């Protein structure tokens, strides 16, 4: 099982690297789908079944199809045939490497981060979908209303933005 964890982690990380280093936006989008599928597998390994399914449906499904759609709509041939400027790449790599060093230093210090996986003792008849639904429509009823308004605003905004002439 630990093998599966490392396998899917490698999938996530190599997918991420593929997005950064891809020449073509289409291959970047497909690397990202791979990365998100690996992440969905990690979620399911962590007993987050609903989040794993949502990751596949919403991220790897809807959002990436939207990305591919837009990439195909824009002229890919014309977009980005120029080379990356080397100083920018070095500086960006430096920031990324500094972040990696920072995170590993914090993780090396131990604390609670090294604790073993605790065993679940929950009752099996209460699935995580049921529990998340209870939380969403119980404790978090106001945030979900606000999210609904946000989605409506985004829809109206997209319609306005995609009109050809703004009068």
């Amino acid at each position: 099982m630990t093998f599966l964890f490392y396998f899917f982690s490698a999938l996530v990380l190599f997918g991420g690297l593929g997005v950064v280093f891809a020449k073509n936006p289409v291959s970047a989008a497909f690397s990202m789908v791979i990365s998100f599928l690996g992440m969905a597998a990690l979620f399911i390994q962590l007993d987050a079944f609903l989040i794993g399914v949502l990751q596949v449906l919403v991220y790897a499904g809807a959002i990436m199809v939207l990305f591919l759609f837009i990439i195909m709509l824009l002229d890919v041939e014309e977009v980005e045939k120029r080379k990356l400027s080397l100083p920018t790449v070095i500086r960006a790599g430096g920031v990324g490497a500094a972040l990696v060093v920072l995170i590993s230093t914090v993780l090396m210090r131990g604390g609670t981060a090294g604790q073993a996986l605790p065993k679940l003792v929950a009752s099996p008849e209460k699935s995580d979908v049921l529990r998340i639904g209870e939380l969403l429509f119980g404790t978090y009823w106001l945030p979900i209303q606000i999210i609904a308004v946000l989605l409506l605003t985004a829809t109206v905004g997209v319609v306005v933005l995609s009109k050809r002439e703004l009068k």
Partner: protein
Amino acid sequence: MDPSLTLNPLLLVSGLLFAIGLTGVLARRNLLIIFMCLELMLAAGNLTLVAFSRFHLVDGAPAYDAHVFVFFVITVAAAEVAVGLAIIIALFRSKKTTDVTEVTTMKY
């Protein structure tokens, strides 16, 4: 899942993915790829939330508040992608490019 797994490797994977996304945002010049790297960073944050919820049990079950939070993050990311791609299309219509170094109208 194997009980020998600890929280550290999960946080490391999430941190590495975040660093990869940040590097991509800073290094790439294509607006679409910058946007994809932003999504990678959001997904890395989600992984951290789910990992912490699995390692912090409440009554023998994972802390499901984190799952609700991840749910909200996914929703906001979907809305953000829709609006952002509409803006990119509007930009492409007027400038015929998605290169961020060529969009300098507001610089001067």
